[in-house]
């Protein structure tokens, strides 16, 4: 069984069809790229998967369970986490506190034990601290832990978002243009980091990228969206030479 299964999904806003009868899947421990011109509907697909939008038609299931009836926080509890194209870090909090938010959903010590500072609370906080350190270290952010998240350079903010999403212990990670705003070398570094994270935590990743070249090297499979429709799907080398894909990208106005 596939981890994520999108079946005949359509999303309309008024008269505008943003996602059109989309069929797609993500398998276990797979790194899948989703590319397409601006406005193709990529972010909308993420919003459907995470329960922000209910699709007009069709179904999305995760490990055999339909996510449609669930609210976003319940989808997160199932094991899907995400980052945002227009960074949404908690601006009033430090980097560490941003990441601590992700541990809230799995806390064993709740309201009363936290207030009365039970021993179980203290040991759990230590555990969370350690996990936070580990994750920050992987992304080279250990020194930035106490900074306000929003005061970091753009590229580092994107990394904090990835760390925050990983801290929820997801089975599927959705990354929305994680390399946006980075220079070409940084982009390549980040993609390699993402691939490493996928293997280290044994998770699946669905990654949106606007720029086709960036994902070619790391993704095992690529979906191409244009005007809400899937126009191609396959291995990077197949996609690269697909005339429909070339046309979609050529037709794009910059």
């Amino acid at each position, binding site marked *: 069984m596939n981890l994520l299964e999108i079946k005949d999904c359509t999303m309309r806003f008024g008269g505008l069809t943003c996602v059109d009868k989309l069929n797609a899947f993500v398998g276990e421990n797979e790194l899948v790229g989703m590319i397409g011109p601006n406005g193709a509907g990529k972010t909308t697909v993420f919003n459907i998967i995470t329960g922000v939008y209910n699709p007009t038609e069709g179904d999305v299931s995760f490990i055999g369970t339909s996510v449609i009836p669930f609210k*976003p926080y319940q989808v997160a509890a199932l094991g899907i986490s995400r980052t945002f194209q227009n960074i*949404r870090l*908690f601006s*009033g909090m430090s980097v560490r*506190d941003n990441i601590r*938010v992700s541990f*809230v959903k799995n*806390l064993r010590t709740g309201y009363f034990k936290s207030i009365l500072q039970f021993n179980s609370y203290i040991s759990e906080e230590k555990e969370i601290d350690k996990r936070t350190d580990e994750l920050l270290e992987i992304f080279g952010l250990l020194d930035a832990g106490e900074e306000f998240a929003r005061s970091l350079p753009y590229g580092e903010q994107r990394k904090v978002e990835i760390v925050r*999403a990983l801290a929820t212990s997801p089975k599927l990670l959705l990354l929305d243009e994680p390399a946006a705003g980075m220079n070409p070398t940084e982009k390549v570094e980040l993609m390699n980091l993402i691939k490493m994270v996928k293997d280290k935590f044994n998770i699946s990743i669905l990654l949106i990228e606007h720029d086709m070249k960036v994902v070619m090297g790391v993704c095992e499979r690529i979906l191409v969206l244009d005007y809400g429709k899937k126009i191609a799907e396959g291995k990077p080398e197949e996609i690269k030479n697909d005339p429909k894909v070339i046309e979609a990208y050529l037709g794009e106005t910059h």
Partner: protein
Amino acid sequence: MKNKILFISSLVLIFVINIFTNSLDPYFYTILIYIGINIILASSLNLINGYTGQFSLGHAGFMAIGGYLSIAVTTYFAPFFINTFGTGVFGESVSFVIVLLLGGIAAAIAGIIVGVPSLRLKGDYLAITTLGFAEIIRVIIQSLEVIGASQGFRGAYIFENGVKAAQIPADLSNVPFIFYSVPKYTNFFWTFTFVAVIIYFISNLMSSTYGRGFLAVKDDEVAAESMGVNTTKFKVIAFVSGAFFAGIAGALYGHFNLYLNPEDFNFLKSVEIVVMVILGGMGSMIGVIIAAILLTILPEFLRGVSEYRMIIYALLLIIMMLLRPQGLFGIKLKPRKQT
């Protein structure tokens, strides 16, 4: 651990200071108690409006519920409390803690009833519903004869034939009765013990990982939900916790004033608490405490112009928004120098 030691030693300190407060000038003593009660009110509203970013405008309503319920129980059930716990310092303390908690719980239940439906809706419905709620509570009290209606409530008449009432009914004017007035249970010790409790409560909650849930709701609800935070649940918890402490504050107030009037809990009182929170800097504990102290003392200097209190508060808020939008003591986000 550090907080626990601080908390326990502050209780000891409060206990010791309490011994000396007997010799204090009654006027200053009264102000001191009001400061304590206002710190509890402002800090509890800070939990809702400051840390969790919701906008409640009806804190006086919860205070009224806690206040009226607790003094009604103390007086109507006075024979029960006296028979069960006696009239010694210990017995009275037990009775008082019971009615304080009852006041808090009643306010918390009201918090659930008001909070759950309005906090589930997206958008700023809370300000309107809480404002309406506080006004409804006031109107209900105004028409409830058992707690003195618009005359206010001083205590309970318990007649020999078993009838209980807040005033002497005309047809019972010949029946013997005992009048149980509200006992003056509230003192420096109890008031500041609850100040210490709420400070301990909030500082522990807000330094915990659990507490990040509230801050995340305030900062960005969409992101919080995506990270698995049940935002509605956190809003309700903050709201109900705040209501609980407002109920306690009301009970302390009732057992100090020994008389409650529905007008004590009008819209102006709710606004006053909101101003303390905004002035102190939403979500800054120290700031809100200092603002509560300042706004308790300030009106004492403005006795002659007390009709203009609303205008002064409004001006204060406008000046504040222009000069220090983060509040007197709130932290302003400083961008890091980029290298």
